[in-house]
């Protein structure tokens, strides 16, 4: 098999890179081991929320200049604003409806009912300009009876502290009651699936409507629209007042949909998506990758002019931590990590964890480094990269998409 570019990893970075290349006529294959971090998305994409010194960021594009030299954004440099806009328009072009601007963070709702800064928010959710938007509102918080991953009390408490008036109700339908017979079935995607037939959704909505007369706004868990946005549009038109969805605990329905929508867009453009496969070994010749071999294709090698490593961090096994080292398992690229294990962690769960910054070392144009030298045709993008803390800095989605687009353009420019 021969492609122009083979991308290893089918998450946000891999698909973003693949779509941009394929759209420009570059023949791509994406090798995906399975679920990606999108499956527990918050429904928003962060670009930059905090600087390493802990100070808040209002304007990500301006603040990026203050990041330290190893941060992936530093390699993108002046083009950060450009690529942020490109990322947004590519998402919208693929059918992932988002709002937000790289010049000014807005706020997203968390499953705890709190507000946190973010860049782009999916149209399922409400992007708040600030924390005062809830004052004086009458909110009806509706849960599906028995769904434990949507915490109505936490949400009501948080909204009330912002001046809203809240009432909580639980509704049930025969279809969701049936799920409850098996104690492990009450998860967001299963509920979304149960609500997919229009008759079921209509029954739910009429129940909600009958109870929502008092309210200005109906608050619901994000359990609508597993494969497309149609149920959301229908819901909004039926309820007839403002609907505010709140993300649930994982798995995330909007996240799963986003993964699906991006994959479909990539395939529609002619890209090849190899699901359930992973790279077993690679041939290296003269400082570049000559071919890769996958679990499913055995000795039948896959060749390309360029390869992109978008395998994610530890969770996705793009990085593997051993008791004494952190390694990149596909190509054995150089990984930047602290040598002493005690330096990997802070004893407080919520503090900055050293291991979050570890990742693959790259040169100025994101070519992966092995044994101190950049490989000529292997690029790295997304959370496998070193030099940033996606959680403390709130930049995970931004790094994934922007580095992926940047790498795609580097590949096309040759």
């Amino acid at each position: 098999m021969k492609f122009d570019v083979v991308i290893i990893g089918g998450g946000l970075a891999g698909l973003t890179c693949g779509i941009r290349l394929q759209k420009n006529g570059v023949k791509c294959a994406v090798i995906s081991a399975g679920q990606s971090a999108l499956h527990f998305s918050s429904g928003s994409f962060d670009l930059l929320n905090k600087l390493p010194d802990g100070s808040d960021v209002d304007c990500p594009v301006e603040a990026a200049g203050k990041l330290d030299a190893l941060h992936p954004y530093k390699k993108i440099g002046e083009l950060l604003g450009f690529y942020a806009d490109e990322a947004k328009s590519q998402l919208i072009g693929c059918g992932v409806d988002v709002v937000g601007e790289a010049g000014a963070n807005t706020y997203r709702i968390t499953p705890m009912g709190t507000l946190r800064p973010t860049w782009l928010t999916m149209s399922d959710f409400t992007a708040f300009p600030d924390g005062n938007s809830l004052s004086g509102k009458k909110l009806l918080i509706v849960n599906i009876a028995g769904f434990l991953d949507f915490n109505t009390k936490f949400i009501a408490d948080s909204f009330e502290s912002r001046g809203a008036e809240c009432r909580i109700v639980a509704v049930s339908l025969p279809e969701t009651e049936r799920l409850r017979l098996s104690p492990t079935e009450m998860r967001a995607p299963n509920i979304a699936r149960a609500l997919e037939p229009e008759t079921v959704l209509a029954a739910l909505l009429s129940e909600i409507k009958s109870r929502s007369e008092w309210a200005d706004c109906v608050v619901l868990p994000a359990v609508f629209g597993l494969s497309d946005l149609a149920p959301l549009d229908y819901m909004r038109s039926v309820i007839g007042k403002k609907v505010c969805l709140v993300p649930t605990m994982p798995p995330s329905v909007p996240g799963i949909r986003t993964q699906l929508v991006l994959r479909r867009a990539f395939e529609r453009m002619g890209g090849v998506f190899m699901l359930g496969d992973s790279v077993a070994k690679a041939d290296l010749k003269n400082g570049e990758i000559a071919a890769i071999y996958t679990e499913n294709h055995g000795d039948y090698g896959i060749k390309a002019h360029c390869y992109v490593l978008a395998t994610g961090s530890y969770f996705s096994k793009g990085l593997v931590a051993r008791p004494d080292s952190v390694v990149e398992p596909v190509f054995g690229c150089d990984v930047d990590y602290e040598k002493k294990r005690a330096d990997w962690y802070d004893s407080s769960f919520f503090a900055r964890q050293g291991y979050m910054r570890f990742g693959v070392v790259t040169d100025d144009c994101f070519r992966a480094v092995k044994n101190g030298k950049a490989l000529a045709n292997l690029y790295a993008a997304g959370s496998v990269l070193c030099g940033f803390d996606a959680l403390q800095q709130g930049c995970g989605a931004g790094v994934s998409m922007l580095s992926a687009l940047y790498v795609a353009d580097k590949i096309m420019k040759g």
Partner: protein
Amino acid sequence: MSANGKSDGYDVIIIGGGATGAGTARDCSLRGLRVLLIERFDFAAGATGRNHGLLHSGARYAVTDKESASECIKENMILRRIAKHCVEENDGLFITLPEDDLGYQATFVKSCQAAGIDAEIIDPELAKRMEPSVNPSIIGAVKVPDGSVDPFRLTLANVLDAKAHGAKVLVYHEVTAMIKEGDRVVGVTVVDRKTKASHNYYAPLTINAGGIWGHGIAAMAGAKVDMYPAKGSLLIFGHRVNNIVLNRCRKPANADILVPGDTICLIGTTSSHVGFDEVDDMRVTPDEVDLLLSEGEKLAPALATTRILRAYAGVRPLVASDDDPTGRNISRGIVLLDHEKRDGIPGFVTITGGKLMTYRLMAEWATDLACKKLGVDKPCVTMTEPLPGSRDEDEMPKGKSFIVKNPIRKSLEGRHGELSSKIPSGNEYDASLVCECEDVTVGEVKYALSELDVNNMVDLRRRTRVGMGTCQGELCACRAAGMLAEAHDCTKKAKDNLANFLNERWKGVYPIAWGDALRENEYAEWVYSGVCGMKQNDLR
């Protein structure tokens, strides 16, 4: 009634909610004494819940400490009867590796038999068939009646029975001073850790069952008990590698016991002297982890590739002697101090030393002394009277239950015995699962919140195993926090609780956070710090 006429109607105040304190509370109340049990955190929060959970046969001590060994085997047999819902009768093997002296085996078996322990030399090949995870290079094996015991369940069962016989129990209450009249202890000053309110309680006798913290409690009464804080660290693995307890057949040393228990197995321990300033916050160091792993792999090589769930450490309440820096050679024997005789402080008794295995005997000794002092003549019955949860099989729950899956019902019955009839399961909500790793239902959480003195999520974990499984509370933590918010009608407290639970969980994970443990934690960080947006200052 004390000299100046103050009385709360208590005969005895017991300080410490570990196995010994709970056992003493049970024994005293069974003998008709009016009991107040005071615990500064939660039941089994100290050394009781921070050991192997090994139902010792006593074989480990047979060569070096015959008295402890024979106490162990007697108590072992008693616990199998009175606490069967807390005990797994797994048996144990003492294995000899090529690097060990096989000559020790004969001494070992002889000492076991002298102590009354049924130790039998078996063919190493047979041992390998009995326990396939054992190191295949073993050159000797001895079978002994070891087992596993769930210390949380055991302590709780004692508390429940004490309460059923009239004992009053205060958790999250800390004794801050002894009230004395002359030299006599006549009561205690207690601070409610939640409200900060202070209250005096009076009784003619106060029993100090504070474990390593008993050192400080004795000091409040003006007595000096030289405790020797010996830290022991352990690792929990993600599943049962072995089904039979594995020990090394040699003089007791580091990391030479591997105990299966419930869904997991444990390797331990290390032993090192620590200062009293450290005993409230034990942390496992990278060196200890490395030692536990390298020694553990010698017992069962599969440990090298088995996921570790967490690391933890406890402090043995050994009574000090001056000439042993490791603490290994101090007797694990029971120490009962009558401070009236020893220090001229009437009204005050300390029960310490010993170990989880001998908690019942310690309670018996302490209660015998209490009865003697209070002029009560009633025999001890705890060696024959089963604990709640281990009583009549006929009382197992019957009737309509929405728990359709047998394994879930078995989990509840295993944890609560006949008391599982109190667990609501009459509708879909009560039958739904909070914790999917450990099969904990909404009904079980409700029962624990209403009946088992649960104040926070860490307590809930000790009562029900919520969050003890493979995912270490990934999603069930948030679900349980929601239920706590409803039960206590306080969202803020439940959110604080969730943050503290996650931090407590991380404390056990970071010493071993590589491989899958790090993957799991990165995911937890994404969910809670990322998606949920929780922050450092949510911790209180």
